[in-house]
């Protein structure tokens, strides 16, 4: 019996690994394609068959950070010779860098990137904190109208942004929050709270109440028990919630587009807009996407051990 079992398990394991490999190819293939496009020269960006091996260059990133225009004629050789190496790369692409005086103009990308960081980080911290404590409240205490309140919280996420946008736009205009970081932060917190509360409650419900009760008997206050016992146990939930809230805030497009202008607009509405000079510049869009992906990826990677840890106590289950 045991021998048959282990042969089955070995086969299953191998199939599992094969399936995981397949999944990796399917899910990561397009991402690798986008990422590699960020380092390709313009003419190799869209080729059939897709170019897998090539000499990487960072010209797309140079394009990403500078304000440029299409040139109608080829560049004057004198100008070309006098230009620094990175400007020459731009000339090679048939464009020239816009300058104020003799300083090259930065594109809006760095600003937008910074805005994204500010808005996403702060709104995530707030959404996760508020969500966690609210989830704890619902999980551990009886609240009159609990089911209704929870459903109300859930419903805040149901309205399509395009419809909420106009009244919010007007409301913000009255309060003066238009085109401001704070305005966007508040909006994202409100948007992410429903998910944060529900997910954290889901995790909190899994944590046996017996632990806190034991701690309370031992003399801890309720808040201490929450802090020292429940929160560490909920680390997985907090990590997962933080990751999702951050991703949502990071990539949000509709509100960022409508509610903000020059001052506080984040990157998502900006990145696809590289398609404007009559020809798509896939390499630059890919470069913008690639860089924009890094903070999220790094953040998630740093939290990976928490994400996978799970609630491993399990000694006392309901």
């Amino acid at each position, binding site marked *: 019996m045991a021998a048959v079992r282990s042969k089955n398990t070995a086969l299953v394991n191998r199939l599992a690994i094969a399936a995981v490999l397949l*999944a990796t190819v399917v899910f990561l293939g397009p991402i690798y394609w986008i990422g590699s496009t960020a380092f390709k020269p313009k003419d190799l960006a869209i080729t059939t068959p897709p170019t897998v091996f090539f000499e990487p260059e960072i010209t797309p990133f140079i394009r990403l950070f500078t304000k440029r225009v299409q040139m109608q004629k080829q560049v004057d050789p004198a100008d070309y010779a006098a230009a620094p190496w990175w400007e020459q790369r731009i000339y090679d692409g048939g464009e020239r860098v816009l300058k104020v005086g003799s300083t090259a103009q930065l594109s809006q990308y760095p600003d937008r990137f910074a805005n994204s960081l500010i808005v996403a980080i702060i709104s995530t911290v707030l959404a996760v904190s508020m969500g966690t404590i609210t989830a704890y409240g619902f999980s551990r205490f009886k609240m009159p109208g609990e089911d209704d309140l929870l459903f109300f919280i859930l419903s805040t996420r149901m309205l*399509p942004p*395009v419809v909420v946008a106009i009244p919010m736009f007007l*409301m913000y205009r009255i309060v003066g929050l238009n085109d401001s970081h704070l305005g966007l932060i508040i909006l994202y917190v409100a948007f992410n709270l429903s998910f944060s509360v529900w997910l954290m409650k889901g995790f909190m419900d899994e944590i046996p109440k017996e632990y806190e009760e034991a701690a309370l008997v031992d*003399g*801890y206050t309720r808040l201490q028990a929450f802090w020292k016992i429940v929160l560490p146990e909920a680390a997985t939930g907090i990590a997962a919630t933080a990751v999702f809230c951050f991703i949502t805030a990071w990539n949000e*497009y509709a509100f960022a587009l409508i509610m903000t202008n020059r001052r506080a607009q984040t990157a998502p509405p900006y990145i696809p807009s590289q398609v404007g000079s009559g020809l798509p510049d896939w390499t630059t869009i890919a470069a913008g*996407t690639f860089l924009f992906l890094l903070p999220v990826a790094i953040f998630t990677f740093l939290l990976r051990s928490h994400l996978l840890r799970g609630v491993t106590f399990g000694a006392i289950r309901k």
Partner: protein
Amino acid sequence: MAVSTMPVSGPASSARQPEASRGMSDLAIRNLFIIPTVTFLIIFNVFPLIYSLGYSFTDYAANRNAPAEFVGLKNYRDLLTDERIWSNFIITAEYVIVSVAGQMLVGFGLALLLNRSFPMKGLVTTLLLLPMMMSAAVVGLFWQLLYSPSWGPINYLFGLGDFAWLSNPDSALYAVAITDIWMWSPFVMLLSLAGLSAVPQHLYEAAAIDRASTWYTFTRITLPLVTPLLLIALIFRTMEAFKTFDIAYTMTTQPTAELISIRLYKQAFQQWDTGKSCALAYIVLIMVLAITNIYVKYLNQAKER
């Protein structure tokens, strides 16, 4: 984490503290933890909800200086008798079913596969989460390229020649759904993994001792314990699927792929038919509320078990 202001007096040194000095009462904590969040949400949702509801009963157009005139249920009636709206709803329903089912199956399946220890598990899991880390607009843009018959790798790799995924009215919607599944399966996968890793080992060991079959283990032990998280994933993905806009709008403009949120956008921002778009938004809201209600009931049932 920030420093708590609670004094950490060793519990061993003080047994049986009197009630009064046991920090805040449970009631106070409960209120403190719940009420600010709820208040915050009420403030930021009530205005748009009332605004939209109010305008849905008028013929207001935000771009005309004429005042709004009350028209009662006319907007709702017009919408519900509009053929195009119904086709939008059916298209959206198809899309939600295909997309969400796909995400759940692929995501949960992946989680089952990954729920074992193997080298670099952390890295692989993080990598598999990458699809959902990109902005929907960018995903739409790049997948448009991927699907392109002239320049895209998909037709090339699968030998599909000239098949135009996004220009073909019959396949456009499914092409978008596939992209959506690609993008959001990792979400379901992560939640499932978190749920799966919460299933205590000793239950599996007990089942193994009892010579339980894989199927039995799966349906009687794994599934019930993962269901709460799965249902949360299902609820949120369904809500989001109904609101899908960015991906579809960037990829295709086929009328057979006109989701309800695209129609809403056109009504609100191209035709500036504010009254009608508010009415449509409420109709969608009611539908989503109804569907979610059913899910939540299941969720509560699952937790009772």
